[in-house]
């Protein structure tokens, strides 16, 4: 199968699934779809930092929260349409991300992880205690998002916009992957010294990756305000970060299709585990460790190496097999 036909098939499958979702008749399915699309953006953002630039950063939920609160507060204050409020939320998240990045890029893996973890916890504490602005522990009730023609009042109305934003962000990510910046990040992940030696400014690239990642989280926060009506600081804690982290790891760290596979699988997991809620944490931990042990490059990595070994059986295609993983 050629590259073009493959891409066309994928695109066609995507269009079919995307248009099928609202016609299934259940508003709950639409809600799930919105949620999964939001997590796609959130997870891609974390993957840019963790999977591509190799930076151990745990502050993602903080930027997600900033996106949610800024977008909805701007909406409450001005009533601007969502295609203005979401970029504002994303910019504020990116700005905070850039501020954090300046000192954070000086830190090595372990310390960066702990510093960003601490920052996320402080941010959650602020969301929980800044009563006048965030509503504190009572949570914040959103106003319906404006489209310029009317209001978004339910999941079904939000769905096309959420879908459009997710597709737009995926398209951006594709371009980022192929850009000089994307390749610089890949180089830093492999070896900072080698990257420096090839003329890449390590600290600047890290800081940019940090900022971009925060912008993605901010956009995901804005998507959250489109289809949800309420936020509580509890959803902005470490558990959400672990969920997003697991999506990346289980799907395939550092690969766009892998992240999407992981998000869809873990997004549907609560449905599969209906009735097993008490054992949810246990099952979750087992899946996470199991994937790390038996599929080090995630489900997508397993699929790719399976395809490579299929190709390798034909002698003429032998050279395409990547040396990355032993069969």
């Amino acid at each position: 199968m050629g590259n073009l036909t493959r891409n066309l098939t994928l695109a066609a499958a995507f269009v079919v699934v995307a248009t099928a979702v609202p016609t299934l008749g259940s508003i709950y399915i639409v809600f799930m779809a919105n949620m999964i699309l939001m997590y796609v953006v959130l997870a891609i953002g974390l993957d840019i930092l963790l999977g591509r630039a190799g930076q151990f950063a745990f502050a993602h939920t903080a930027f997600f929260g900033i996106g949610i609160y800024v977008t909805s507060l701007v909406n409450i204050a001005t009533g601007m349409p969502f295609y203005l409020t979401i970029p504002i939320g994303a910019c504020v998240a990116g700005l905070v991300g850039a501020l954090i990045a300046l000192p954070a890029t000086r830190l090595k893996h372990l310390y960066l992880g702990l510093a960003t973890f601490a920052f996320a916890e402080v941010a959650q504490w602020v969301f929980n205690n800044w009563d006048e602005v965030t509503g504190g522990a009572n949570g914040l009730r959103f106003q319906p998002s404006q489209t310029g023609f009317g209001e978004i009042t339910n999941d079904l109305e939000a769905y096309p916009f959420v879908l459009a934003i997710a597709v737009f962000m995926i398209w951006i990510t594709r371009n980022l992957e192929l850009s000089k910046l994307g390749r610089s990040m890949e180089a830093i992940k492999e070896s900072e010294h080698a990257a420096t030696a090839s003329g890449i400014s390590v600290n600047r690239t890290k800081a940019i990756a940090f900022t971009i990642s925060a912008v993605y989280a901010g956009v995901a926060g804005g998507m959250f305000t489109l289809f949800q009506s309420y936020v509580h600081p509890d959803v902005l804690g470490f558990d959400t970060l672990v969920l997003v982290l697991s999506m990346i790891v289980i799907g395939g760290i550092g690969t766009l299709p892998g992240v999407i596979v992981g998000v869809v699988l873990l997004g549907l997991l609560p449905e599969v585990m209906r009735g097993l809620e008490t054992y949810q944490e246990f099952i979750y931990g087992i899946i996470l460790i199991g994937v790390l042990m038996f599929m080090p490059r995630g489900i997508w990595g397993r699929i790719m190496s399976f395809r490579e070994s299929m190709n390798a059986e034909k002698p003429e295609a032998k050279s395409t097999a990547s040396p990355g993983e032993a069969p």
Partner: protein
Amino acid sequence: MWEIYLLQGLAGGLVTGSIYALIALSLVIIYKSTQVINFAGGEIVMIASYVALFILLYTGMSYWVVVPLCAISTFIIGISFERVVLTRIQGRQAPGQSVLVAMVIATVGLSYILKGIIRPIPYADEVRTLPPMMAIDPVFIGPAVISRQDIAIFGIAVFSMIALFVFFQFTPLGRALRATADNARAAALVGIPVARMRALVWGLACGLSAIAGILIAPKILMTPDMGGLIILAFAAAIIGGFTNFPGVIVGGFALGIIENIVGLTISSNAISVTPFIVIILVLLVRPQGLFGGPSEVKKV
């Protein structure tokens, strides 16, 4: 008036700080020899205190029996996690940053498994606390009040730290462990079974956490989520630069005292955010920790 606050804060802080120092030591022992931050450290503490609760409730054995039993059970958890999970992850991935990421995420997975084991058990429904180890009648040190149990906790914690120090400094096994942590390749060259040492380090650290868990459980409320206290140990470890044992112990005590004084003077609401602020401040000012040496640069 403020002298009483200060003394009370100091006394209470030294007691909780000694426990934080123990947990922080268990993190640092693991970090020094495997470079992994153990995000399941708090859950090991949690498991140990629940095991203690079950033994005490069902058999009524004394604390003298309970402590070793708990330490042995977490020792086994630690060793098997290293043997079964971490060695496999390490063996399957290319060395470097990504294998560390994978190993740290595996500890997050372990923490979920441990929480998931405890949560469905009926005893975890309600908040519990361990029965007091001994009479909790107060003792006065100047104007400050401290309970007899607190003195015992402090004593046991300090004793464990001294025992750990003696073990690492003077026993052949402890020296072999240190050699492995300093330079695994050189240790292997002089005939130290490095792989076994790594497993042992995990077991030892988890056993140490068990002692900390039993010490802290009579003082706080037990829930399956009590592992969150690990963040205090992270802060203590960061003050010590994650490598310097005395620095980590000082960090533990400092954190206990800071926490107590913040609670007494600012607000109890601010206690929960204190360790995070400490972490951020220390990392901003001196990323290698207040006691860490100059930050090292790894060769390519």
